[in-house]
């Protein structure tokens, strides 16, 4: 057999792919999404707290946020996941039993929070001081002014960077396989790897890669789309019913004086 066809069969064995596909879609894909989405939610909440701590008037809060961010951004994700997954396992055992899955989500969230916190902080700090003054002059407390006026504007400005962080999370979710998941908990990468190990053929792993791309490539386009919209502006929808206005932001030239 010539090397080229060996190579072809190693990566493009359609039968191997077809065999792995059902489990990939019914087990791997949902698990990857659960890990990434729940870590994104928890990481965003923690990130927002870090961002607010990072700009607070308390030196101790700022310092704590700084150290946290430096540590969790500075460590390799794999090391953090292993440290937390193994280090907190006895604690997890008492709370929810031997399942490593929640600790995997926790570790991913803590890592994401460090990055998302920096993203949110830069967005919040980019909002003009006049906005805070405008809100305070109406009688809003500092906390209300931040919550209702400053933070919503700041976060909108950094949505593209936040979506990039989701992409990173989807990829990093593959690392929780270190923690020894049971069969029904395996995400895309682990399922691809298992099939590859039993068949000695990498096609299932390639299929897993294609699944990741199917998730991440559209998201990169979402980033570009939000970016364009923030840059060029868009007329308001005329709806005033949405209390948070999350869906209908129009950042036109006027906003970015």
């Amino acid at each position, binding site marked *: 057999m010539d090397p080229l066809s060996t190579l072809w069969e190693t990566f493009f064995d359609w039968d191997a792919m077809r065999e792995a596909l059902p489990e990939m879609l019914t087990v791997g894909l949902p698990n990857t999404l659960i890990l990434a989405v729940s870590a994104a939610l928890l990481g965003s909440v923690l990130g927002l707290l870090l961002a607010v701590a990072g700009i607070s008037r308390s030196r101790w809060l700022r310092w704590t946020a700084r150290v946290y961010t430096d540590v969790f951004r500075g460590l390799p994700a794999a090391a953090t996941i292993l440290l937390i997954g193994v280090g907190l396992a006895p604690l997890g055992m008492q709370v929810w039993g031997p399942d490593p899955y929640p600790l995997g989500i926790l570790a991913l969230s803590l890592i994401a929070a460090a990055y998302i916190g920096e993203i949110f902080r830069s967005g919040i700090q980019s909002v003009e001081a006049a906005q805070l003054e405008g809100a305070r002059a109406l009688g*809003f407390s500092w906390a209300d002014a931040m919550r209702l006026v400053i933070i919503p504007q700041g976060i909108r400005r950094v949505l593209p960077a936040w979506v990039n962080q989701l992409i990173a999370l989807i990829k990093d979710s593959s690392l929780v396989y270190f923690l020894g998941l049971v069969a029904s908990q395996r995400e895309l990468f682990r399922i691809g790897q298992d099939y590859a190990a039993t068949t000695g053929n990498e096609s299932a792993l390639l299929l897993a890669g294609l699944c990741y791309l199917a998730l991440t490539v559209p998201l990169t386009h979402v980033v570009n789309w939000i970016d364009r919209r923030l840059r060029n502006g868009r007329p308001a929808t005329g709806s005033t019913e949405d209390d948070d206005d999350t869906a209908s932001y129009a950042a036109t030239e006027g906003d970015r004086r």
Partner: protein
Amino acid sequence: MTAATTTSVSLDVRDVHLAFGPNRVLRGVDLSVPRGATACVIGPSGSGKSTLLRTINRLIEPDRGDVLLDGRSVLGDDPDALRQRVGMVFQQFNLFPHMSVLRNVTLALRRLGKLGADEADAVARAQLELVGLAGKANSRPSQLSGGQQQRVAIARALALRPEVMLFDEATSALDPELVKGVLGVMADLSAAGMTMVVVTHEMGFARQVADTVAFMDRGVVLEAGPPEAVFERAGHPRLRRFLDQVL
């Protein structure tokens, strides 16, 4: 606009001092504005006019001196509650760009005035009607002209039924043809009996609308009095020089 102004009060600023580090910006400012009167504050850039307004609603705390509403010192009050009594309008409008015009006005009504959604909407729409912008309730601030944005900012402040209104160069950022509409709204408000302090470079407005004109220079009110006295019989050389430059 009478509805909003029935509760206006007198304002007294007494010997207010404020320094930013070594920069002594306010050096004993006195200003008295009787209930329902309008005081225009004029003076060169950097003389402390904006800082004075900010000490009145305590966006900046004065180092020394007193601010009285209706004869009572406000320096011991809760600053957030005080700011609901003292409305402020800024040169750059400071509208919230991520909210509709209507929501810019209802936000404080609902969160601070504790009005329900429908009630706040009704108050806000009535207030927008008074500044001639009823049709713009659902627009974004960025879709409005500068003059319209400033009128929204005025409506937003008035919706909270303040007892005193502060204007910090409300028309300085506007194209010339838009200035008149905003000054008109301010003149109406003054005529309706609102107590107002208006920092302005519009000498025509000061002459026609003000009960008192105060000339500020280097952190003090150098001269104050009725417009005729200040404009026609300016005593202090620095005031004369200033008027020569702006008139």
